[in-house]
């Protein structure tokens, strides 16, 4: 631009020093991680009866953070009995206004300690602090606030119906949004007058246990919220227990099937929120730069550990090259690294096992001759990390194009017409999410009506609101969470006078 550039080398050096972004880690000191954690049953923390424990690790380093009690069948029985007693003696007849007050108090306590929860979530789970700070914790509080508001208005939520609580609810949640899923499950259950036995995932138990402290501090009676830590066996024992009235599960389709079999014929209510293989449909008239942002956010948010992730990109052939060029350039700019660093875009993979799963999918795609793009930046040497990955040149029958990878891997295919786009998007056993990217309002409506997905976003992706029902079709699950539909899943409804 200028005729006599001034100190060009000095400016270029400054630019490089600036653009590197010196480390900006959020402090760990705000959390105090204890060496041992117990089960929370009837308001008391205690070891498992059989004395078994398991370690929870920090994904960014692989180091052990704490030893956590592993609940066995006897502990499950204790917890379900405690929840039953609490329901019958202390919670069922407490009244909506009091339940609302307690939930509001819990929501505010969570907001008060938001930074602590965000840091702990990032340490235990590996997600970037920016996400736990800006998404997980605020959304968890939002779910508590939203359902607190319903607690004394259930007749208005369900006009013409008499709404009664179900009883004891068994809740099994995954490792991708540990705190958010806990709040997402506990809030409607308590608002509707049920008591809870919650099992967090074995790799991420810490924020649910910290939340249990807040539940107690808020004044929720003992036994209303019980936390059983453990792995698959603990969860299986919980859903098989005869003392439960409902199961709410979020996790893999495979486990969801097993749970469905386990509760069949028992009169136990069930909601399942399972896997997905969500598709972005990018049309040639889309705002491409913003579509690129949305696709990046849709698949690399939380390292792709998102059931509703947009893990498939279907792009119209006329703009496919252009879209891919922009997408690759954008992915090259993603910062992968220390999850506690405020500038990290993509954090650590949650576990060594999950990392191996993701690598197996990508290796298979490479072997099959697919085109695989990853940024050149090196990954951290310690911990479990996977580069953001774009796989193109796919026919559509490859495993990576059909199965849920649950990692930062985007599978790209092209289409020619709207009909073809819809057919390809629907060519999956799942049916959880989809995103439509186009400048034409009419096209959004035409396409969205034909997509087989529980949620369809238009020109955006991964937007969540407690007032909006969320859930899937087909192998993505049954039932809805959030909104009035989500409330109904926790209520025994009968017509008034019926």
């Amino acid at each position, binding site marked *: *631009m*200028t005729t006599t*550039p001034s100190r060009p080398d*000095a*400016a270029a050096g400054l630019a490089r020093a600036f653009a590197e972004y010196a*480390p900006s880690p959020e402090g760990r000191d705000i959390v105090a991680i204890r060496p041992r954690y117990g089960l929370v049953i009837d308001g008391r923390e205690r070891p498992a009866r059989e004395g078994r424990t398991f370690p929870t690790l920090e994904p960014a380093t692989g180091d052990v953070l704490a030893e956590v009690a592993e609940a066995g069948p006897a502990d499950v029985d204790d917890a379900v009995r405690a929840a039953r007693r609490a329901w019958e003696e202390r919670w069922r007849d407490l009244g909506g206004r009091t339940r609302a007050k307690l939930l509001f108090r819990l929501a505010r306590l969570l907001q008060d300690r938001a930074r602590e929860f965000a840091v702990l979530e990032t340490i235990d789970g590996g997600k970037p602090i920016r996400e736990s700070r800006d998404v997980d914790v605020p959304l968890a509080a939002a779910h508590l606030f939203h359902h607190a508001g319903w607690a004394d208005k259930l007749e208005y939520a369900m006009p013409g119906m008499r709404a009664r609580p179900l009883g004891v609810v068994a809740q099994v949640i995954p490792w991708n949004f540990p705190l958010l899923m806990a709040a997402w499950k506990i809030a409607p259950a308590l608002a509707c007058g049920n008591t809870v036995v919650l099992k967090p995932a074995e790799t991420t138990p810490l924020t649910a246990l910290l939340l249990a402290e807040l539940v107690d501090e808020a004044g929720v009676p003992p036994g209303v919220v019980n936390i059983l830590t453990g792995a698959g066996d603990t969860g299986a024992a919980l859903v098989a227990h005869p003392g439960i009235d409902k199961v709410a599960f979020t996790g893999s389709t495979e486990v969801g099937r097993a749970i469905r079999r386990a509760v069949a014929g028992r009169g136990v209510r069930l909601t399942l929120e399972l896997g997905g293989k969500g598709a972005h449909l990018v049309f040639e008239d889309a*705002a491409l730069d913003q579509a690129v942002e949305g696709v990046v956010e849709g698949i690399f948010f939380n390292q792709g550990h998102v059931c509703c992730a947009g893990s498939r990109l279907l792009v119209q052939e006329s703009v496919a090259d252009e879209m891919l060029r922009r997408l690759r350039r954008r992915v090259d700019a993603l910062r992968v690294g220390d999850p506690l660093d*405020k500038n990290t875009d993509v954090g650590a993979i949650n576990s060594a096992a999950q990392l191996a799963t993701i690598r197996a999918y990508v290796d298979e795609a490479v072997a099959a001759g697919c085109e695989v793009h990853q940024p050149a930046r090196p990954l951290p040497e310690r911990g479990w990390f996977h580069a953001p990955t774009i796989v193109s040149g796919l026919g559509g029958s490859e495993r990576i194009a059909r199965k849920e990878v649950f990692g930062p891997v985007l599978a790209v295919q092209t289409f020619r017409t709207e009909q073809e786009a819809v057919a390809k998007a629907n060519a999956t056993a799942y049916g959880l999410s989809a995103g439509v990217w186009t400048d034409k309002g009419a096209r959004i409506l035409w396409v969205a009506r034909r997509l087989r997905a529980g949620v369809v976003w238009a020109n955006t992706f991964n937007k969540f609101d407690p007032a909006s029902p969320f859930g899937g079709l087909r192998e993505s699950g049954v039932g809805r969470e959030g909104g009035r539909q989500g409330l109904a899943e926790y209520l025994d409804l009968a017509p008034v006078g019926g």
Partner: protein
Amino acid sequence: MVTLARDSRGALLAGAHTGPLRVAPVDGLALEERAARLMARSVKRESKQAGLLLAVACTDLTTLEGADTPGRVRAMCARALRPDPEDPGVPPVAAVCVYPERVADARAALGDAPVHVASVAGGFPAGLTPLPDRLDEIRRAVAAGADEIDIVLNRAALLAGRLDVVADEVAAAKEAAGHAHLKTILETGELGSYETVRLAATVAMAAGSDVIKTSTGKLPLSATGPVALCMAEAIRDHAQQTGRPVGLKLAGGIRTAKQALGFLALVGETLGVEWLHPDRLRFGASSLLDDLVLQLRFRRTGRYARPGDLPVH
């Protein structure tokens, strides 16, 4: 899709974009979300130090008031050469920006120093004086010693759909500016939508602008994150299509070092680190320099200076 009609004056666009002018749709909500994310980068320690110095080096120290006297411009030029009298490590700014009548004063005050003299010209800030007058003003500013000319885009023609008029006027200004570099102000606060911003940016670049600039600084709505991002994306596409890098000048409403660091992050991550250079990025501001110097002093001495500790121009 817009195609610029080219007549015999098409020669003015030699070297610029000559194919059909395609302007991509812009989704405002997503643009704003992305811009907010970029502006919120956490810039610390040595990156912050480098960013503050870089922001100084990219500043167009500006005075555009009716009451600008030769004395005021001289004082500003002294400040431009030595932004912090107590710290020779703070580099000179990129340019001083004045009205045409003050160009000779600025040129005299700066001597051979590596600080450019930029002049607004061409009926600033409305740009609605007759075209021959505007071109004449540009020529006189260049003759007086300006090596950068900041013109305003003809928003009236743009909003009336006369892209050919807009482009021809910019091309004529480019010719009038001769060896001086042409910085075209889009005045984004008057354009109404991000898509119009992108259209204006695309036309201004296609017609030969060396730099596109957000604002005159005369409106309450000036350089914002989303507008900067929208223009940066247009620059990126133009460079990709034509191979010609166009500069970006963010002007108006930038007062704090924190804002400047946010814009550096936005430009660096959108256009690449090579755009973080006074040849390709400018901040048009009058009070920003004070905050940059205060922040640099704090980093050097560990305490905040009072505003009264800085020279006034």
